[in-house]
């Protein structure tokens, strides 16, 4: 039987650990997440919960050592990326799966022109010559709304504003019309006024190129605006995953409720406001004791939470939650 997979990317029970001097850091500890073609999925969670490590795992961009994969698989069009050879992985990067980063300031190389860095993508994946690649770079810059692209290609990153740099990063990432874009907090480092423009640009290009997006963000407003599904992470695990509307309307996990109520306005970020609703601090993933890591902070913890961590279970159709009370309510 021929099964057409609706999941383009399927992360299954992924475990990405770091060997650190302080002990084993279980940065991503058994995460499962699917992304269909053209779908926009959000990932939220406090700092250090493993969002970036998850995204970097997909592209194999983590420094190994100290990182290593302790288990799971990352299926992309039904092929396990964890089993790819370095060169197979390389051909995928920037071509079928791209990534943009939080810091547009440091993500571009300071000593090469924008054009030089942009044309490389066409040279390596499309085998274009210099001149042709540069022309493509100019076209791509125009597409992401960089004014006077013919002039900009000759400029260096420091001559560009943060917003312009992030546009260049987006141009670079989408140059080869990838099937999947991993956007790791693409707007966090930008001015608020610019943030909206960048999100708008990404949504517009997503429509045009039909690229699926894994959007990592602290900004619940953006999540509400553009994602269809969202996953909430805590200490390397997914606590709750649901259609976005569902999650905002009826969050099941106490942690999710804490995140949502800690922000009075939907456009605020829970990173800037303190998580007043959730007492305590995020434990470091380095050398975590066994057990359920949210239990000490949970206002609704019951006996079983102390004994054993809850598994992620489907509480309603399409709505998964890892909470003893919510799953069996």
């Amino acid at each position, binding site marked *: 039987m021929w099964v057409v997979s609706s999941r383009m990317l399927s992360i299954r029970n992924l475990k990405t650990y770091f060997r650190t001097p302080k002990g084993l850091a279980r940065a991503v500890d058994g995460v499962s997440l699917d992304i269909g073609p053209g779908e926009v999925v959000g990932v939220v969670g406090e700092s250090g919960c493993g969002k970036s490590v998850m995204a970097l795992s997909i592209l194999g*961009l983590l*420094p190994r050592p100290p990182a290593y994969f302790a288990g799971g698989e990352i299926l992309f069009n039904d092929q396990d990326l964890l089993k790819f050879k370095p060169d197979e992985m390389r051909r995928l*990067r*920037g071509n079928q799966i791209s990534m943009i980063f939080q810091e547009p300031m440091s993500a*571009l190389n300071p000593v*090469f022109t924008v054009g030089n860095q942009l044309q490389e993508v066409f040279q390596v994946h499309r085998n274009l010559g210099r001149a042709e690649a540069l022309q493509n770079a100019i076209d791509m810059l125009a597409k992401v709304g960089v004014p006077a692209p013919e002039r900009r290609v000759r400029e260096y990153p*420091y001559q560009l504003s943060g917003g312009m740099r992030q546009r260049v990063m987006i141009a670079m990432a989408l140059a080869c019309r990838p099937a999947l874009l991993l956007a790791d907090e693409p707007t966090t480092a930008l001015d608020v006024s610019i943030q909206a423009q960048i999100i708008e640009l990404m949504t517009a290009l997503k429509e045009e190129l039909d690229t699926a997006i894994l959007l990592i963000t602290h900004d619940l407003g953006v999540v509400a605006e553009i994602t269809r599904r969202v996953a909430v992470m805590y200490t390397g695990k997914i606590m709750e995953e649901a259609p976005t509307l569902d999650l905002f309307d009826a969050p099941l996990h106490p942690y999710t409720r804490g995140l949502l109520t800690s922000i009075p306005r939907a456009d605020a970020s829970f990173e800037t406001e303190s998580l007043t609703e959730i007492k305590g601090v995020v434990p470091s993933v380095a050398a975590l004791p066994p057990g359920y890591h949210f239990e000490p902070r949970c206002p609704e913890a019951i006996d079983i939470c102390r004994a054993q961590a809850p598994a992620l279970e489907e509480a309603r159709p399409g709505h998964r939650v890892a909470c003893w009370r919510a799953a069996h309510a």
Partner: protein
Amino acid sequence: MGRYLLKRLWHTVYVVVGISIISFFFIHLSGDPVMLMLPGDASMAEVETLRQQLGFNDPLYVQYWHFASRAVTGDLGVSLYHRVPAIRLIMERLPASLELAGAAMLIALVVAIPLGVISAVKRGSLWDMSSMLGALFGLSMPHFWLGIMLILLFSVTLGWLPTSGRGTLAQLVMPSLALGLSLMAMFARLTRSVMLEVLSLDYVRTARAKGLREKIVIGKHALRNALIPLVTVAGMQFGFLIGGTVIIETVFAWPGVGRLVVQAIFSRDYPLVQATVLVLAVIFVVVNLLVDLIYLYLDPQISYLEQK
């Protein structure tokens, strides 16, 4: 960019004037050359006459003024020992010294950069550990000792290379190796540590995220940035290299400025010493100016910041 260079050029003038003043006074503190210039049984009157003739009785600042005003016209005085203009002696020997220092620098960089890059990329490997151990040895070996060991091995035992002199490539090998080895070791360690730092930066991750080949990620994106601090240090080290030629030229009978100045010091030929110090200072400063030029090319941000 023009303004930047002009500013650097202006700095250069300061430095040269400063060095000339300092060296002038130090040399005149070191003793009376007149006593050495005359036979031991010369009378006080004869000594006094010569002092008067040579201007040694004038206040020091007057003497310096005389020296400096002649120096700007290219007249650095006459060697007391050789009885010819000091500048002529120096210019005759200078190409040999520059050749030696240049070759040493070239060997050091050509070997050290690939060594350091591979060590950084393969951090913790057997290659890394053995080359860094080698570098440690290289750093701790004194020039003259290394020179003598090279002669013992390659000339005396194996008979492959000539022990001394200048003219053929074979004669250049040992002196430049002896002079450049510690520098090579230093550059290798520096390249490794700078590369390790650069390789962990965001833009290197971006380069990988684009799907570039590792060869380009390292050889282009990382190395080009690592070269910036390397060039700075290489420029500074060139001065020390010139200093090192003094010893190496003596060990290998290399006919350069280093040997000239050693002889001049022993014979209290103070105009020649003074002239050599000044010429070497100018070379040092010119090299630093060249480094600034390379810098402009390597780091586009410098010329940009200067414009603002």
